[in-house]
């Protein structure tokens, strides 16, 4: 390939070794958002994850977001087919995916277009583009490539065309496999990462492959690194502080599965559904090591019923699902509420309603989690706000479920499911796991629903316990579990089940306000948006605004002390990743405006005129967006 005939579109990459390494100034950055996109199967995910892991090894904060096409095998070179990873690397701890991208590596111009059109790239963003398409045999491809390229340059992007294929061909016969490691080398060079850390990472990810495979990949990595050193005219350094204690780097679904293991739960019944499935994939791989099983049931109803059966006769079981599956489980969840069977239900939320947006982030199931199902079904609802939370929430949920014989719904979402963020390596404690199964004989007079007058809690009878024989039923029942049609007995049963929620509520601590306890505006959020909201609050406070935020882990019951917190602020709003009507719309007014989930909940409970802002773009909320919303709200 004759590079000299090409128009000089790459600053400093006209085929000669333009700027020597020594000429480069290394720019110090606080943070950098990098993404790599390709067709599916070209290894962009692996490249991105490795880049993030190396950054973490370097001591940088990271948050990664997967870029997933909706289809398994989207057509090659298609706008909707972008697959890859986006990594926010920071000098400090990173709590969310951040705003738009600073630098993108694209293996073809079409997947790149997808990112441009959804507004994911910062104005002037640096683009490293595979240039092999310029010489493709297919004229249409050449035309499309050149046109896109020119348009991007015109639009002010800093485009570098890079002969990735050509360079890789020097080392491997089929660059489609391996190009990702060449790119990894480029990225490591650009960010001044220690090459040895990258080599270690490669040795780690290819750990189960032969040394020859590892060596070949390291060679590609080094080639990319050298190429960037000789041909690119920029280089960054993001100061890092090496962690003083071990950290683990996993995504939310992996953290959740590890949490299940750590909680001592033994049975997980599920039916595959995006974006929840990967938690069960990983759990399937590791659960049997500790005597647990993952049962893939015939559908979500069966999965929930199976988990209920396992919980009823053993220690608390769990079922993991996402929106559509959570809908199907409602009747069975009601049975667990009625029979007072401990159960953990995980809803890894995705875009709804119906099949909605399976791979996209949304948090629209809160009210459904609290109030779904017919009749009064008191159950606990809690939400994870970080990857670390995904781990510990399983331990907490199991404990609550078994202490109160209740259903505990844990909400996470597609954002947490696939995002990676390091957290302190947990130190296992025996307190985390379930106590041994009680099989002792029950006292003569014991009754299966001997509800405590104050707390509503009754001792659970587990099959195998002598003298505990009774028939658990989903019908209204008395203290002996006998079917009861007596109005007073039904009244009593409902009251006792409700009291348990109140009892749990008494044990909850008031969450702390992020920022001053008083001010102009309090922003309230829940779930995965915590990092973005707090970062936005930091930014607007720097602009001089008196804004604080509050993040809720327990959504049902709500902890005490919230009302007092609300009263410390002139106005209050929730920021959520779910639907709410835009009050500026022509026919929307106070009589018909539909608020987002948490705003409904808080307005109803505290009689405070809480405003809300939300969007349903399928993306995690960006701190920049939230900061803009807050600023507008203050005007």
């Amino acid at each position: 390939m004759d590079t000299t005939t090409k128009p000089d579109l790459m600053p400093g990459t006209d085929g000669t070794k333009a700027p020597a390494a020594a000429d480069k100034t290394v720019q110090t950055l606080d943070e950098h958002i990098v993404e790599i996109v390709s067709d599916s199967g070209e290894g962009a995910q692996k490249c991105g994850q490795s880049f993030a892991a190396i950054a973490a090894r370097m001591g940088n904060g990271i948050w990664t977001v997967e870029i997933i096409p909706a289809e398994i095998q989207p057509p090659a070179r298609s706008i909707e087919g972008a697959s890859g990873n986006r990594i926010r690397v920071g000098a400090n701890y990173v709590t969310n995916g951040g705003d738009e991208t600073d630098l993108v590596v694209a293996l073809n111009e079409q997947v790149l277009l997808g990112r441009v059109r959804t507004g994911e790239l910062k104005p002037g963003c640096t683009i490293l583009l595979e240039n092999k398409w310029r010489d493709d045999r297919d004229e249409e491809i050449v035309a499309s490539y050149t046109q896109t390229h020119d348009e991007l340059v015109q639009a002010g992007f800093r485009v570098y065309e890079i002969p990735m294929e050509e360079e890789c061909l020097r080392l491997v016969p089929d660059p489609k496999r391996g190009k990702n490691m060449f790119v990894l080398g480029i990225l490591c060079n650009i960010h001044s990462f220690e090459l040895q850390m990258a080599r270690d990472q490669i040795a780690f990810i290819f750990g189960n492959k032969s040394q020859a495979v590892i060596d070949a990949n390291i060679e590609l990595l080094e080639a990319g690194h050298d190429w960037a050193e000789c041909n690119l005219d920029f280089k960054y350094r993001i100061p890092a502080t090496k962690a003083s204690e071990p950290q683990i780097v996993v995504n939310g679904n992996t953290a959740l599965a590890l949490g299940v293991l750590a909680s001592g739960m033994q049975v997980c019944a599920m039916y595959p559904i995006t974006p929840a499935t990967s938690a069960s994939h990983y759990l399937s791989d590791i659960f049997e090591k500790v005597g647990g099983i993952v049962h893939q049931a015939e559908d979500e109803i069966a999965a929930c019923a199976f988990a209920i059966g396992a919980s009823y006769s053993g220690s608390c079981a769990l079922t993991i699902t996402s929106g559509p599956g959570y809908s199907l489980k409602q009747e069975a969840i009601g049975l667990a509420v009625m029979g007072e069977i401990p159960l953990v239900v995980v809803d890894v939320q995705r875009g709804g309603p119906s099949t909605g947006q399976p791979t996209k982030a949304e948090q629209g199931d809160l009210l459904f989690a609290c109030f779904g199902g017919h009749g009064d079904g008191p159950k606990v609802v809690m939400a994870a706000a970080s990857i670390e939370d995904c781990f510990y929430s399983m331990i907490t949920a199991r404990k609550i479920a078994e202490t109160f014989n209740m259903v505990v719904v844990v909400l996470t979402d597609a954002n947490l499911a696939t995002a990676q963020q390091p957290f302190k390596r947990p130190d296992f404690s025996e307190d985390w796991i379930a106590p041994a199964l009680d099989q002792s004989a029950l006292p003569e007079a014991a009754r299966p629903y001997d509800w405590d007058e104050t707390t509503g809690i009754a001792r659970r009878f587990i099959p195998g316990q002598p003298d505990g024989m009774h028939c658990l039923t989903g019908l209204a029942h008395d203290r002996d579990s006998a079917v009861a049609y007596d109005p007073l007995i039904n009244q009593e049963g409902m009251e006792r089940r409700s009291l348990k929620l109140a009892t749990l509520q008494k044990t909850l601590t008031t969450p702390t306000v992020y920022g001053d306890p008083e001010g102009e505006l309090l922003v309230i959020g829940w779930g995965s948006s915590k990092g973005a909201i707090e970062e936005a609050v930091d930014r607007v406070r720097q602009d001089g605004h008196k804004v604080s935020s509050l993040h809720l882990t327990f959504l049902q019951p709500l902890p005490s002390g919230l009302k007092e917190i609300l009263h410390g602020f002139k106005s209050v709003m929730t920021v959520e990743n779910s639907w709410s009507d835009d009050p500026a719309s022509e026919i929307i007014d106070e009589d018909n405006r539909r608020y987002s989930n948490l705003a409904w909940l808080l307005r109803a409970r505290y009689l405070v005129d809480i405003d809300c802002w939300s969007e349903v773009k399928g993306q995690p909320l960006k701190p920049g967006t939230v900061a803009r919303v807050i600023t507008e709200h203050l005007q």
Partner: protein
Amino acid sequence: MSTPATERLLKSNDENFTIDDFKSNMPRWCTGCGNNAILTALQRLCRDEKLPREKTVFVSGIGCSSRFPHYMNTYGFHGLHGRALPIAEGIKMARPDLHVFVNTGDGDCCSIGTAHWIHAIRYNMNMTVLMHDNHLYGLTKKQASPTSPQGLQSNTTPRGTFLEPLNPLSVTLGITNASFVAQAVDWNPESLFEIISRAYRHKGFSFVRILQRCPEYVPTMFDHWMNHPDKTLLLTHENGMQVSPSLAATYKNQETHDPLNLDRAREIASMTEQVPVGILFHDPEATRYDDIRDPDRPISPETIRSALDSEFDKFTVWPEQ
């Protein structure tokens, strides 16, 4: 209030009267309801097999027949319409030491619970499933069920049902990994008991379809079979149901059927002119999901700690030494 049939059976067991140990609340089924006979047979089975009451669980769905667990002095789980089987599977998976029975109606099993039924057959977990088939919905007051004979007038089909009934026996026999399929009738206690005993002793998913009378809504449904014992085909075999001389005298129409013969079992299942009673199919070797999945490592803090640590190791970024 017990029915004449129940009383008769109770009397016949007078000598060592421990059936009471398995009795709980008084059944609330209609007089003459076939469920009473099934209850008696199960109480007798529990007594004869000396099942520890606390180690026995009856699981059911919703329907008249699903009230069954309330009347057993064992553990019981009266669950959701159609969902008894997955609940029972969860129980068995968590606790292989428990004896698990399932009571399900024809609507419960063959309509709302069909998906679970099909898959439960395939899982072949060790439990005894009694499908009380009265050919209609009793609890909800006479609607057609999938097993209603064509033309049955019900509240939802006042001019008769439209389609031919689903055949639970041939459906079950059509599923890969079916391991025990039998048919019994509530009006003959001896064969009912014998078949249920065989079902209980089979290690795997034993499916017993029991033709069950519902005098309240379809009083004449089974008259044809009851009044013509020659229309009953008694299945006998050394590996099948044991037939006493008195039973043989009642049902003279017999076939020696090897329960391992699946092809013949399917033919028998499809008979319309005779009602087969006995064991159609029995394969003791069929794979059991609960056997395969039974974790061989007990849960303990040590196993959890070491498994967690080795997983964490895969994802750990260590601080510089």
